[in-house]
């Protein structure tokens, strides 16, 4: 379950299980020329392990920035950001890279596959940072590509795959290290309706069948319906949280 938090709310008598993502008073701004543009201000939010949340909001609302901060690819100006109990905002760059490799799976709007690598090699890519043997890597890659229904497309290059197939390769790449958290930035933004539906169904299965915690940025209401809960952002502020009826 995810909800915006009021840090001033008194603690409940019974301590609930620690959330996977715990955000307190998070703020982020960007410098554009001489101007400082606040993007997020005073965000506090908990995301439970196994949740599937959709971050929604208009363009410039800060939803992708929030996702980037949670994924450890950007750093907040202030506030606390714990993921799995680790304050990732305090980690040095090299440790943060290691942390991302081990704990976060990325799904991007435009897939961001390496065009010179085959589907197999793209999925294998994150495993190159592990100590797994070639045989172990092969076993995993084949299994994950099978899960996303691309066992017969392993040797195809991204340009030889449709958009939906490329996104499935990206999902396989996100899954390959068995990460704690999967972050998806507009995963259906570049897909036709049918492919988008397939991808959303796949994300739901990852959430329900494998228990993966998924945070998805979208401004597509149809895509957001796939999530268990919604978080709305506007002008860098959290508006409301909404628990949806879908059961895990």
């Amino acid at each position, binding site marked *: 379950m995810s909800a915006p938090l009021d840090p001033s709310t008194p603690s409940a008598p019974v301590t609930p299980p620690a959330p996977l993502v715990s955000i307190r008073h998070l703020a982020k701004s960007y410098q554009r020329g001489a101007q400082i543009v606040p993007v997020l201000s005073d965000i506090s939010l908990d995301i439970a392990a196994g949740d599937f949340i959709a971050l929604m909001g208009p363009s410039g609302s800060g939803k*992708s*920035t929030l996702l*980037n901060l949670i994924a450890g690819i950007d750093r907040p100006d202030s506030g606390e950001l714990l993921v799995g109990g680790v304050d990732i905002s305090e980690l040095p760059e090299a440790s943060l890279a290691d942390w991302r490799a081990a704990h976060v799976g990325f799904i991007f709007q435009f897939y961001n596959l*390496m*065009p*010179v690598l085959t589907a197999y090699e793209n999925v294998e890519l994150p495993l190159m940072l592990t100590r797994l043997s070639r045989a172990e890597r092969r076993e995993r890659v084949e299994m994950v590509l099978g899960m996303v229904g691309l066992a017969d497309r392993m040797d195809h290059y991204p340009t030889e795959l449709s958009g939906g197939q490329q996104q499935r390769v990206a999902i396989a790449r996100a899954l390959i290290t068995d990460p704690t958290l999967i972050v998806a930035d507009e995963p259906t933004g570049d897909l036709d309706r049918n492919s988008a539906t397939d991808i959303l169904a796949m994300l739901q299965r990852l959430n329900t069948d494998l228990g993966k915690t998924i945070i998805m940025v979208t401004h597509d209401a149809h895509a957001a319906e796939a999530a268990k809960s919604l978080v709305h952002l506007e002008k860098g502020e959290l508006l409301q949280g909404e628990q949806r009826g879908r059961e895990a």
Partner: protein
Amino acid sequence: MFLPKLIARNAMRHKLRTALTVLGLVIAVLAYGLLQTVVDAWYAGASAASNARLVTRNAISLTFALPLNYEYRIKGVDGVTQVARSNWFGGVYRDPKNFFAQFAVSDNYLDLYPEFIVPPEQRADYQRDRRGALVGRQLADLYGFKIGDVIPIKGTIYAGTWDFVVRGIMDGRDESTITRQMVFHWDYLNETVRKKNPRQADQVGVFILGVDNPDNAAAISRAVDNVFKNSLAETLTETEQAFQLGFVAMSNQIIAAIRVVSYVVIVIVMAVMANAMAMSARERITEYATLKALGFGPGFLSLLVFGESMIISAFGGALGMLLTPPAARFFKQAVGGVFPVFTVSHETMAMQAGCALVVGVAAAIVPAVQAARVRIVEGLRAIG
């Protein structure tokens, strides 16, 4: 194996761009090699010259001769073992463009030049024939001279047409020996001149001195020049190498220009390649950001860029180096024997390899730093 595979595939991603970059590098490395070989060829005479031989000439200028009687006084200087005479003949064989050196030399000349190998019977034939001449192998090959041929040469310094009979072919001791000259009897020249123009007789262009110990060359040179101090024809004695370098020095500015051009070519291709690498890096910023997001470090990204640059430069450099020797042979033939020795040296090849390496590294520095420093969020253009 993953990194080399990724590097190789990236290098082949834009085949046309890579091919053109490699082509540019091949041409640059080839041009560099040829230009350096031209410079080497310029110095070849001086390089082949001996430090164990001294050359005594008129101190005013090489165009002024020395009296013949100096020979006996030079022989009297301590450390001088032999003295040979040599006069620049400067004649024209059929056409002025058929330039080659002709020297009138004393009979002991070859004793001072062991690098010229003449079979004993040919040398004996030469000694017997007053009009006899010895031609170098390179010269003989160039004009097809054979033993017994008569070479008519029109004198420019010494008037008239002179007929010389080829009595022997001088081979070089090794590849660096220049054998693109002709020598004939100094006595023949002197006797003929005495009849036609007595004022030109008994004049020697330069004396070539053999010394007992090359380490004493400087002292012997001073001693020789001291003998003729305050005379009507003071002398300047120096090692043969210094003497040859004096000729080369006359072309110093041309050589400097050639050297500069050879380096400019390399700098130009470096700029071209740096531009190609920068374009590649710019196009791949999103990929670098993705790799960084997945956990790959800045070092890995730098290696990707450096590796690609090095592959292209290594390929272009190797191809350029491979093509240099055949191109040098073609060049040597095309210029019609202007450069008797035109061999691509190991040093030049090493410099070509060094240039390719420097181009590869230098071209990659800025793109590699950019790749390593790419901010993931900016690279992904994901500010929401």
